[in-house]
């Protein structure tokens, strides 16, 4: 049953327009619509019904809310689980791993230097080769080490900083070892290394 006659065109316009420009859900319109409603009983009744209907929806939404006992506690427990152990695991694993790999790299370079110094005359190696070999070894070692360690620590900025620091120090040490102990032309291990970046003629 529909007790309401079909609204006039102007009434439909006002009602539709009020939904876009009105003061709220079910609220009376502003501007020209407000003037129309003042003089139109049908629209007064319509907007009154809208307001009542919205109020009923709100009331029933409140009644219809369901509770989930213990959910808050479970959520809090899950958050606590998610925030504490993970960074510590990453740190305890990643830093020793970095140190171990760095030591292994240093050992490998030392071994190469010793065997190469014994087996090849020192004047077979040019400064460029020394620099290239050092940079190659260093890049290969650290190219594999840094990404994995970085991924492991990506969730912690402070740990990331620490890793970067360790990485920088260790890479410096490897470069130092490579440049000092790889044989150069007419030099023996431990002599002053050539300066990377300088042309060969300028190097001492």
């Amino acid at each position: 049953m529909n007790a309401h006659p079909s609204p006039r065109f102007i009434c439909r316009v006002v009602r539709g327009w009020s939904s876009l420009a009105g003061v709220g859900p079910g609220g009376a319109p502003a501007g020209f619509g407000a003037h129309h409603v003042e003089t139109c009983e049908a629209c007064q009744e319509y907007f009154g019904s809208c307001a009542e209907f919205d109020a009923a929806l709100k009331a029933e939404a409140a009644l219809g809310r369901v509770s989930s006992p213990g959910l808050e506690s479970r959520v809090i427990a899950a958050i606590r689980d998610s925030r504490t152990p993970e960074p510590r695991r990453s740190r305890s694993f990643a830093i020793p791993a970095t140190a171990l790999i760095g030591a292994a790299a240093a050992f490998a370079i030392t071994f190469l230097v010793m065997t190469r110094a014994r087996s090849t005359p020192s004047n077979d190696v040019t400064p460029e080769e020394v620099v290239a070999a050092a940079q190659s070894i260093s890049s290969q070692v650290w190219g594999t080490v840094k990404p994995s360690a970085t991924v492991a620590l990506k969730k912690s900025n402070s740990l990331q900083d620490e890793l970067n620091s360790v990485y920088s120090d260790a890479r410096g040490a490897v470069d130092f070892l490579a440049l000092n102990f790889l044989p150069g032309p007419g030099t023996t291990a431990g002599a002053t290394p050539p300066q990377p970046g300088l042309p060969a003629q300028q190097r001492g």
Partner: protein
Amino acid sequence: MAFFSQSEARVVPGSAPGALPEESALVRSCVDGDGRAFEELVRRHTSRVFNYVFQMTRHRQDAEDICQQTFIKAYRNIDRVDPDRPIIGWLLTIARRTAINHFRSAKAWTELPEDTASTETSPARQVENLERAGNLWEKARQILAPRDFEVLWLRIAEEFSVEETARVTGLTQTHVKVLVYRARQQLMKGETTA
């Protein structure tokens, strides 16, 4: 219309557009690394997040899981939230996206039948539910398209502003207004013809 008494220290739906000063302070504390402040936000908003997801899914276990995932994601991304806005809108946005991922597609989220996500509802069953339903929201669920239901729920039950509703659902504000108008018309017509 307040859903919770003041003594329960809950956030009342419709607190938009500006965040309560107390909530802003909590969010800022969270950003500074105060885990207890976030736990307080969990206590304040768990019920609303859970109810929103439950209203859309009608599946308690899924709603609980999605609610939990929502807060974990929020905790990890708390530095992205604007402390000067009510956090509930942001939480419901995360909840909505999490639910969509949970059901693997937006279609699944918007077409979930009543009571369980896996049970199909026949037309006969829909009529039965409609006759049985004494609650306006049950009728709304039966009559309205899922998207219209969601917008109406946010706008009226959660008392979200048009802007907040649009933000959560990804619709334009004009679209939200039109959907609310249309949904109300459909429901009121259903009421008068019932």
